[in-house]
């Protein structure tokens, strides 16, 4: 993955005057501008990847929970978050990884689900209970035409978080963001 770092030498997105410290609320808003590298219509906050922000003295501690164990985007997301903080003048930060509780699609906000649908990805249906993991395949609505007349093509799609579906109404294939 090629990374493009800002090459600006004196330009800055610094938002807070030297010596002042933004509130965590302001930093949450800042991180809402960091898109998911694989599904750029949603950001890392509404996906539930950023779990906690806290000031520990002068250091901003950012707690992140990775989505899938092997998700190749995890490292990239950490770098993007770090870069966003640096650009805003918050170089004095520490990223911490928290594994438990494990990330779940239940943390994806309703607004993000709607953005996924508009982007052509069927959002996770229902909650990630044992039943939906082990039970019958969920009824997945086609993001193109809204039909529930769909079928699973493969349990695994273009990335670990998605399954491959096909709509039997409009005949379009689509990704389904599966529950975990």
């Amino acid at each position, binding site marked *: 993955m090629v990374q493009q770092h800002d090459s600006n030498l004196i330009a800055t997105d610094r938002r807070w005057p030297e010596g002042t410290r933004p509130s965590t609320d302001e930093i949450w808003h800042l991180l809402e501008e960091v898109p998911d590298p694989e599904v750029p219509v949603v950001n890392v906050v509404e996906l539930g990847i950023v779990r906690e922000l806290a000031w520990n003295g002068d250091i901003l501690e950012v707690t992140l929970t990775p989505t*899938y*164990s*092997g*998700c*190749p985007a995890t490292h990239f997301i950490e770098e993007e978050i770090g870069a966003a903080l640096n650009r805003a003048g918050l170089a004095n930060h520490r990223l911490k990884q928290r*594994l*438990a*509780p*494990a*990330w*779940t699609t239940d943390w994806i906000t309703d607004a993000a689900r709607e953005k996924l649908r508009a982007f052509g990805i069927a959002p996770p249906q229902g909650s*990630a209970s044992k039943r939906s*993991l*082990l039970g019958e395949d969920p009824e997945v609505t086609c993001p193109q035409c809204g039909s529930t007349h769909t079928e699973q*093509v*493969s*349990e*695994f*799609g*273009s*990335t*670990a978080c998605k399954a*491959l579906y096909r709509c039997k109404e409009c005949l379009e294939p689509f990704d389904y963001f*599966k529950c*975990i």
Partner: protein
Amino acid sequence: MTEQQALFEYLLRLGDSGTILSQRLCEWIGNAPALEEELAIGNVALDLLGQARAWLEYAAEVEGAGRDADALAFLRHEREYRNLLIVEQANGNFADTMARQYLFDAWHYFMLQALCTSADERIAAIAAKGLKEVTYHLRRSSAWVKRLGDGTEESHAKMQDAIDEIWTYSGEMLIGDEADQLLLEAGIGADLEQVKQQWQAHVTATLAEATLTQPAEDSYMQTGGKQGYHTEQLGFLLAEMQYLPRAYPGASW
């Protein structure tokens, strides 16, 4: 054996099994029977590698010898590997791969489920995360065993052959040794007797639904992988997997 040594062994077994199976599965990339299967195999391999990284990072910390997860994965020799023998076996045909995957997934699923309640919080956290992913792995591989077993005459014959071939490597994951016993008593490791019962029930039900014959219960079982005694398959696999980091130490991109 101290508890720390047992824990190091235990973490290597989990991490190495994931790494080696992941490497095996990657050999299908470019060769899978269908695009969807290639995506699925690639995703399963990626999940396993991600889990392996978490296990090996912890193993490296427990060892405390200055090695990191990369050094453990890429700079150890064959005899130092602690993976189960089943995961190093060659891919064979698609039925062979799916039979191997299913028997491993069923064990992996119940193993991680048991480890979710480990007294070691880090183990419990890695297991809980992995369990979500392995749930999908098991669903897929058991579906393939049933589909091929209860399919055409040819697919049935191939799946039966595959089960018969790999069966001798399925016992090792259910047999405990000193490290297993020590960690079980410490409340850290899984109860393999319980995992064994769950595994057997799942396998018996799946093979019955697949119209396949389950090999005899007293079949001879190969062991040794967990202690570092491997089949000839592993050396060739490592030669390929470790080539780059050994030829170009510290390489990055």
